[in-house]
């Protein structure tokens, strides 16, 4: 049963949602490595597919928070607009590095976040 790809995807999604609810970090940090390690995704495919999932989760989250009036639109624009430019640059940059280098870079990011969690 665990060998079936859809079952693994559902499991990874659940875990990603759990992580974002518990720790306030997005699901992407869980989705990318698990797609690479458990579902045999290429690093670039894993990153791209993770973004698709994160967009869905973030939309649902915004809708929930907006009902409670917690979303500050001005601040979201202040950060989100330059981030759009950054994301375009980041995806372009990603196409120029090897899969192994990308995996290694992600391992570095994950190490940083792991240490931050243990220290915090």
């Amino acid at each position, binding site marked *: 049963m665990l060998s079936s790809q859809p079952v693994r995807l559902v499991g990874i*999604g659940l875990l990603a*949602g759990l992580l974002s609810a518990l720790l306030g970090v997005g699901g992407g940090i869980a989705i990318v490595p698990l797609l690479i390690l458990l579902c045999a995704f290429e690093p670039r495919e894993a990153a791209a597919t993770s973004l698709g999932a994160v967009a*869905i989760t973030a939309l649902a989250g915004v809708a929930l928070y907006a009902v409670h009036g*917690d979303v500050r639109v001005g601040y979201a624009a202040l950060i989100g607009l330059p981030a759009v430019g950054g*994301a375009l640059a980041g995806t372009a940059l990603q196409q120029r590095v090897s899969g192994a280098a990308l995996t290694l870079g992600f391992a570095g990011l994950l190490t940083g976040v792991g*240490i931050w969690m243990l220290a915090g």
Partner: protein
Amino acid sequence: MSATTIALGLALGAVGGVLSGMFGVGGGILFVPTLVALGLGQVEAAATSLLAVVPTATAGIWRQTRYGNLRVKPALVLGVASIAGVEAGVTIATSLPEHVLRRLFGVVMLLVAAQLGHRAFRERARYSETR
């Protein structure tokens, strides 16, 4: 908003966007602490970060679709399943102390990072062999 606030927001927003596009994360990992530093409360920061993630991820998705890297069906399954995971997470978060959870996930992340590093070196070795 003061000039310093605006400059800090713009700069960290851009860096978060690069991380997002490069590694496929939403950027919230940088957005939330930035918004807290700018004076928002924890819940406001989390909510506002999610709104900032939507256009950031959308820009990445648009480019990645053109590069041919996005696998649409798995993305949909992951996205919908993680909404259910959030529900479960909220229940667990209220029953376990936060520092225990942070330690636990911190250790898991370091283990996964080591696994990824191992995989990257193995792939690199295989690549140089075939050349």
